[in-house]
């Protein structure tokens, strides 16, 4: 799976309360959730994000609540991939389960800047910053998790009998 897009960058400990504030959790409508994505951290996000854009962040991205609405809102907003130094564990598994692509790479998250054009290959774990020409290698997912991702998420994996 390959991705290419412009980078929107945030810092450490981006929590699920700022990704999608609880006051909007009275709906499961994906479009509505996406319209409030990142609102309490960055009011401009929802209006400036373009399909395919890549989100880059620091340590412990997605910490806090287990709300799957957070990766759903990010995915629905058009973000194709999130690269972070580390992910909070529930956000990590939620992203895999719903088919939001994520990559953990400290160096890439440090070096890549807001607005850079980035390409990434999820299977190989290769990240290329087209703006600076730098290449980074992320830890690829174990085969089991790649299987869930290649099915398109946990629901499809269970339906296809890949998980039992």
């Amino acid at each position, binding site marked *: 799976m390959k991705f290419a897009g412009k980078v929107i960058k945030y810092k450490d*400990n981006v*929590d699920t*309360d*700022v990704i999608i*504030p*609880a*006051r909007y*959790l*009275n*709906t*499961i409508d994906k479009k509505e959730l996406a319209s409030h994505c990142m609102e*309490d*951290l960055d009011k401009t996000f929802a209006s400036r994000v373009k399909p395919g854009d890549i989100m880059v962040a620091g*340590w*412990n991205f997605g*910490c*806090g*609540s*287990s*709300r*799957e*609405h957070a*990766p*759903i809102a990010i995915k629905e907003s058009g973000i194709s991939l999130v690269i972070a130094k*580390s992910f*909070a*564990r*529930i956000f990590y*598994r*939620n992203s895999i*389960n*719903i088919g939001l692509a994520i990559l953990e790479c400290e160096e890439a998250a440090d070096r890549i800047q807001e607005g850079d054009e980035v390409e990434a290959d999820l299977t190989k774990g290769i990240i290329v910053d087209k703006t600076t020409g730098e290449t980074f290698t992320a830890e690829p997912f*174990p085969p*089991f*998790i790649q299987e869930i991702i290649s099915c398109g*998420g*946990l*629901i499809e994996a*269970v*339906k296809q009998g890949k*998980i*039992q």
Partner: protein
Amino acid sequence: MTQKILAKHAGLTEVKAGQLIFANLDMVLGNDITSPVAVAEYGKLGFDGVFDTKKVAMVMDHFAPNKDIKAAEQCKMCRTFCREKHIENFYDVGKMGVEHALLPEKGLVTAGDVVIGADSHTCTYGALGAFSTGVGSTDMACGMATGKAWFKVPSAIKFNLTGKLNPWVSGKDVILHIIGMIGVDGALYQSMEFSGEGVHSLSVSDRLCIANMAIEAGGKNGIFPVDDLTIEYLKAHGNKPYTIFEADEDAEYTAVYDIDLSTIEPTVAFPHLPENTHTVSSIQDPIYIDQVVIGSCTNGRLEDLRIAAEIMKGKQVADGVRCIVIPATQKIYSDAMDEGLLKIFIDAGAAVSTPTCGPCLGGHMGILAKGERAVATTNRNFVGRMGHPESEVYLASPAVAAASALTGKISEPKEVL
């Protein structure tokens, strides 16, 4: 200890950190925010019924009693699903409580269980010697359908507790102290295992509070050994058979921390991360507050209300402070009424609410305006957590929260007693 529970539930003799396994589930939990997403995902799976109607629980606690029409629709969706699937543990207004206070009270979770819940504070039940962890709605949907979940076996950090807590210091101060020490990702992907002779001096309520906030250090779970107090608690709350697992003497840990409980002081986490901890005694300039919330899955148990009431008895909430007390379950509410605690709160000028998660996550029942500041016995103080993005939450114990309600600024109990 975590690894042994997971191995047993995966049908394996042993597991190693990093290993990916499928484990059988003893309980799958959801609330009125996460369950609607799970119900929608469940519908895509094509299963007729849930794997076990006794092993699924849905609790309408976050935006219930319904705060608006959309919240009401979400609860209705859960209600309909539970009725159709004959789910036995559906808890609606009048019977519900804050989920992580309710499940142990009802005896639905016990030592040796593997529990997943579509709520990050599901790690609470580790206090009873269970492996329990928060997951998302899709995991909940697949868990309800298949009775299994995938896990990456965590490595473990050991917290060796010695000594005893001083008066007016509680489990909340212990866990805030630990999060301040290791940071909000200090236990990322790992199990936080509490052990040592100091454990036995902690009440089950304190242990529930400590395990509850393991997630605030990034932990996969927090877990306590099972002792006489645990067994006494389990026997008093239902008759679900339990299994005791013990950590091996030579168990491997990525880190070991020694904590002398007698050295822990009343501790507060400043905005906007639970790791920004300070002892109350170290606060130089007064921090004035607008609101106090005493409740939540972290600190809404009867023991917590008793502490707050002891401090507030015969006194008045400071002018300009709104104090909201939320017993976490109907039983706690009823017991607090019988013990006269609710009267103490009301006489002091506090509001007493029906059980709800409400203000903890900025849902309802105590939202903060721009620039307002609250002391809360809840678990998170992220930007906008209790309301306006420019409001502030200071996390504290019931004792500190009650004392602060009386003085109008962050205070230690000894300042008002």
